[in-house]
C-alpha cells in the first residue's frame, strides 16, 4: 500500500447529497485514496446541496444560484478550491461562477440575499470534479505511480453522463461527443478503455420521472452498444449514473427487458482496487451485477 504523502494540493471537499446519503462508500474511498496521491481533502462546515441543477433549479432559479453562491462563499472563506465527487455538483458550482461573473447585476442581487445571512461572495472560486482534478492537477502519471495492481483484465467503457463534460464552455474538461481523458485515466489504472457510440445520458431522469420502461430501454441499448464494441464492464464517475446502471439493470433483468447486463464500477472503486484495497474495503462485494471476465478478474485480485 502506498504511504500517505505530504499533501501537495489542498481542496475544500464538497460531498453533495447523493453520495453521503446513499453511497457513503464512495465518500470513504475518496477520503482513503486521495491522501495517498498527495491530496488533502478539507471538510468545510456548512456546505449544503449544490443545489440540484435539474429539478431544484427548475423550481426557482434565483434560490438555486444563491445557494450555489453560498457554497462557493464558504470555500472562498477557507481560501481553498473545491473538489467534488459528483460531476453534477461541480457543474452547478461552475455554472454559478460563470453566470455571476458575466452578470454583475446578478452577483449584486445574490450578494444582497447572502449578506442577510452574514455571507458574501467575491468573484469566482475554482471548482473541479475529481476526474478533472485527477487529470489536470495530479496528472495520469501520478495515478499510474500509485497503482499496485494494474487492472489489465478490464476491457471497459466509460460513461461520462450528463455533466462531466457539459456544458462544454463552463465545465471545460473534455469533448462530450468523443471523450478521451476518462480513457487515459482508466489506462493509468492498467485497464483497457473501449470506445462506443451511445454516449448520451444514462436515463436516470426518466426513472425519476416515473418513465421506467423508457429508462430500461436506454440502458439496454447503451450496454449492448458497449458490449458490441468489446467492453465487458463499464465505469462511471457519477453516483447517479451508478445507481441507474446498478439498480436499473437489476430491475430490467428481473423484468425480462435485459439479458445478463454488465458490471458497473464507480471510478473510485477501480482506483481503490488498483491501489491495493481489498474487495471488501472498496465495497465491491455489495454489487449486484457480477458476471463475465471483468468480474472474474476483480475477484481474482483478492
Amino acid at each position, binding site marked *: 500500500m502506498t504511504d500517505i504523502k505530504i499533501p501537495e494540493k489542498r481542496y475544500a471537499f464538497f460531498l453533495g*447529497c*447523493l453520495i*453521503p*446519503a*446513499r453511497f*457513503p*462508500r464512495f*465518500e*470513504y474511498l475518496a*477520503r482513503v485514496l486521495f491522501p495517498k496521491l498527495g491530496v488533502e481533502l478539507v*471538510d468545510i*462546515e*456548512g*456546505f*449544503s*446541496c449544490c*443545489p*440540484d*441543477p*435539474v*429539478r*431544484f*433549479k*427548475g*423550481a*426557482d*432559479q*434565483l*434560490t438555486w444560484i*444563491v*445557494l450555489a453562491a*453560498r457554497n462557493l462563499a464558504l470555500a472562498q472563506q477557507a481560501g481553498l478550491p473545491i473538489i467534488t465527487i459528483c460531476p453534477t455538483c461541480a457543474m452547478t458550482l461552475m455554472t454559478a461562477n460563470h453566470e455571476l461573473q458575466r452578470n454583475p447585476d446578478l452577483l449584486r442581487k445574490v450578494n444582497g*440575499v*447572502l449578506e*442577510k*445571512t452574514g455571507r458574501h461572495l467575491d468573484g469566482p472560486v475554482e471548482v473541479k470534479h475529481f476526474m478533472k482534478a485527477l487529470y489536470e492537477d495530479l496528472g495520469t502519471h501520478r495515478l499510474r505511480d500509485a497503482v499496485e495492481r494494474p487492472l489489465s483484465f478490464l476491457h471497459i467503457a466509460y460513461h461520462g*453522463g*450528463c*455533466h462531466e463534460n*457539459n*456544458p*462544454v464552455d463552463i465545465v471545460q474538461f473534455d469533448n*462530450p*461527443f468523443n471523450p478521451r481523458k476518462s480513457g487515459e485515466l482508466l489506462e493509468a489504472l492498467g485497464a483497457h478503455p473501449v470506445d462506443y457510440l451511445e*454516449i*448520451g*445520458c444514462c*436515463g*436516470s*431522469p*426518466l426513472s*425519476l*420521472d416515473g*418513465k421506467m*420502461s*423508457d*429508462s430500461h*430501454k*436506454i440502458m439496454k441499448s447503451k450496454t449492448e452498444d458497449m458490449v458490441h464494441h468489446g467492453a465487458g464492464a463499464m465505469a462511471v464517475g457519477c453516483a447517479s449514473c451508478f445507481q441507474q446502471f446498478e439498480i436499473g439493470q437489476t430491475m430490467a433483468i428481473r423484468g425480462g427487458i435485459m439479458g445478463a447486463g454488465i458490471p458497473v464500477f464507480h471510478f473510485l472503486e477501480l482506483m481503490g482496487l488498483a491501489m491495493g484495497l481489498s474487495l471488501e474495503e472498496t465495497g465491491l462485494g455489495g454489487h449486484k451485477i457480477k458476471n463475465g471476465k471483468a468480474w472474474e478478474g476483480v475477484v481474482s485480485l483478492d
Partner: protein
Amino acid sequence: MIGIDFSGRKKLYEIGTLREVCFQCSVCALHCVVQNVEGYDIRNTFVYDVFGSDDPDHHRALWTCSGCHKCHEVCPQDVNPARVIDDLREQSFKNGCAPSYVYDLARLVIRTGMAFPVTRRTLKEREKMGLQPIETAAAGEIRQIAGITGLLDKIEAAQEKDKSEDRGQGEKQDD
C-alpha cells in the same frame, strides 16, 4: 438592396426563451435523453413538442429533461433549449403545476439542506466506515434564503392551490 437587421437578436438570445428562431432541424434530438420517451421520433422531437405546446405548464415530459445541455452544444441557431426548459419549468412550478416530487424536493432542501433523505441505514453504514454523521448546519440559513427569494411563498401557494382543487373535486363529487 434588402437589409436584415439583426440588432434585436442579441437581446433575445440573452433572455434565453428563444423559441422563435428554432428552424426545426432536429439536430438537438440526436443526443437528447427525452427522445427515448414513448411517442417521440426525429420528426416529432421533444424540443418541438415543448416549444409548440399550448400548455407547457402541464407538458408531459417538461420535468424529464436531464439538463445535459447536449442540445445547447449542437444547436446551429443557439436556441439553448435547456435554458428555455428551465424557464418553462420555473413557470410551471410557480403556477403550482409541477409534479409533486419537485415540491417535495424543494421542501426537503429547505428543511435539511440535502436533496436526498438520509436513512437510518445510511447513518449506520457511515458509522461502520468511520465517517462522520451528516450535518445539516446549513438548513436554518437555507430557510432564511428561501424566504427572501420567495421560494417559500411559491411552495405555499402551490400547496393552497392543491388543497382548493381537492376541495373543488370533493364538492363536485358531492353534487
